[in-house]
């Protein structure tokens, strides 16, 4: 019964937001000769904006990204879960603390519910080469109460 109620609530919200319960549009985070990164918000409440500065098969370390979103939760503590799939099978699951009380890594840590955030800066990633193929990536940002801050279904196409 709870699941049904939740589904119903989500349905009313989506239909109130933008007509007929459509999903959020798919955006391009970056596109270059050999690499294309597409993403779609999987948070039923809202979309968000994201782009990566450089887009190449040889992924550089410490990439610069741009990110814009409205916070629906406080982010004194913020965690990122990444799940990587190819051809339906899971390759990698990874969890990374972005903001912690004893180590707020980024300037936006500690901002409050309702704030609009624009972040343009490095993400402190390691550099590596992406093997050709198509990958599905599920990214989830959540806080200490496990409330969703952002959720993305991404597709990486590397040729």
């Amino acid at each position: 019964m709870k699941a049904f109620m939740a589904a119903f609530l989500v349905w009313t919200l989506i239909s109130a937001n933008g007509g007929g319960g459509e999903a959020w549009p798919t955006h391009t985070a970056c596109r270059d000769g050999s690499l294309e990164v597409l993403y779609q918000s999987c948070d039923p409440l809202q979309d968000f904006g994201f782009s990566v500065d450089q887009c190449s098969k040889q992924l550089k370390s410490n990439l610069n990204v741009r990110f814009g979103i409205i916070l629906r939760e406080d982010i004194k503590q913020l965690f990122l879960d990444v799940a990587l799939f190819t051809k339906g099978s899971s390759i990698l699951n990874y969890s990374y603390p972005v903001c912690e009380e004893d180590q707020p890594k980024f300037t936006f840590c500690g901002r409050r519910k309702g704030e609009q955030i624009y972040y343009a800066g490095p993400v402190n990633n390691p550099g590596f080469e992406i093997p050709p193929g198509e990958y599905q990536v599920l990214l989830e940002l959540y806080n200490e109460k496990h409330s969703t801050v952002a959720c993305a279904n991404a597709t990486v196409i590397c040729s």
Partner: protein
Amino acid sequence: MAPRVSCFLLAILFSASCEVIASLDQTCTEKEANKTYNCENLGLREIPDTLPNTTEFLEFGFNFLPTIQNTTFSRLINLIFLDLTRCQINWVHEDTFQSHHQLNTIVLTGNPLIFMAETSFNGPKSLKHLFLIQTGISNLDFIPVHNLENLESLHLGSNHISSIKFPENFPTQNLKVLDFQNNAIHYLSREDIKVLRQATNLSLNFNGNDIKGIEPGAFHSKIFQSLNFGGAFNLSVILNGLRNSTTQSLWLGTFEDIDDQELTSAMLEGLCEVSVESINLQKHHFSGLSSTTFRCFTQLRELDLTATHLQELPSGIEGMNSLKKLVLNVNIFDQLCQINAASFPSLTDLYIKGNMRKLDLGAGCLEKLENLQKLDLSHSDIEASDCCNLQLKNLLHLQYLNLSHNSPLGLQNQAFEECPQLERLDLAFTHLRVNAPQSPFQNLRLLQVLNLSHCLLDTSNQHLLAGLPNLRHLNLQGNRFPDGSIPKANLLQTVGSLEVLILSFCDLLSIDQQAFHSLGKLSHVDLSQNSLPGNSIDALSHLKGIYLNLAANSIQVIPPRLLPILSQQSTINLSHNPLDCTCSNVRFIMWYKENLHKLEGSEETTCASPPSLRGVKLSDVKLSCGMTAVGIFFLIVFLFLFTILLIFSVKYLLRKKYQHI
């Protein structure tokens, strides 16, 4: 039977449709009856009629209220907390909160405010917390000053504020928290700070403001609870500006996304004239780190150097005798001795968590820290074949030790002999190698809490937990027992003082009836996420008034003889079990309904069989297990035939008896 079930299902379906209809009307979620409601993200244009007048806590964020005025909330006169985050409010008109005498928190975060009337906040008798984050404020005159005398916290982050100068008549006497995060404040003058003179023990937050200058003497003889200049580019400007001030804590850390200057000894000179107890310098780079770098740190009690790229602390730092707490998390030490612990003889708390390289504990590296009470060495890839007496030598007063999330540790008998005062020991997710029949925790007479979750323990070693007379809390989550069973003779027999026992995720299939017999003081038993059947409850027959978690096991039927054992406990969780809802389990189902107040997770406690009731909440199941109609029919037929037979036989006997006459 069958028609009854279908009737019942129909009833459920009907009630479900009723609930849906109700939910169209009742848009808000009730969190506490008549008091706390959440109406977020519903696109509401007014307070719904369904909210009771008694509502005290209202979360009303992400709705649509372009104008708020004295009629908007007039019905909810008992409001204490009102969250109006991102409601697209442009106007706060006169006397909006006139009738809300109890209101103490107003959240207006993320609203594009155009104007707030002079009497916007009139009404509340004691308005304590006001959130005006990201409301487009560029001038502090924008905030109406009336009725803010009781204000304790004022949040003004993410606006366009460039000067913190409040109007002269702004009441600051009760202010404890003043938050200016992420504004455009570049300069702090004496005039700016002077307005805050009435506030005592103020916490001021300038995180994310690029402060380029502070007028000399601006903070002269001011006393603060905390000052935050996070992300400031030039620390010497800040420290010189804070001359002759007093603050409990000073946060001067920086972030990944900020280019910072390298810290030199000269830049920290200003600290010599600031009275401060606790400093945070996270993520800075030190240039030419030497013992003189810390020349002005001598009065400190707490120093946080998280992620400051340290490979070692210089030896011979003098004058840090009063330092009590040192945080060295997320640095790049190879050897524990590289922190040169001898410089901090008074240290009571030491954190070296998340070291970026494999940390070698060495031998006796902390032996000069005689007063150490708390030591956190978790997530640091520590590996040792024979731990921990050599490594923790002379830590006679240690009370808390965290070695969780490390590489394999070999423990021998009395592995913690050097820290006899230990009260809490955390070894979670660290593979422990203990050869039976060794007792590594022997002689930890004061140990109360032991976390051994996911330690890949050899649980057949019955002496593993020997010598822990005061252990109250034991976590054995994620460890396996031979054959998935806890036998009568097991490692728990030596820890009779146990109050909290966690055995979840242990792949348990059975527990011997006598397995917990020596544990008479248990008050909390977590056996969730195993594969235990109903009769494992037998092992708890001697316990009363406990919290019992049996969620996510394989319980189908609970025999009536076990119900008294459940009845004598205070809280029970039976959710996510494949419970049987046929007449073979009827006594349990009746017991369940009578004891709903004792049950936790009843929303997720559902039937798995028969198929017609799968997923139905146990509390909704209606079983009548008297005789069925067919049964009654046969019984009547049987009784009828029996009577006929009796009559005939009596007739026959009588006839036989009187035949001779």
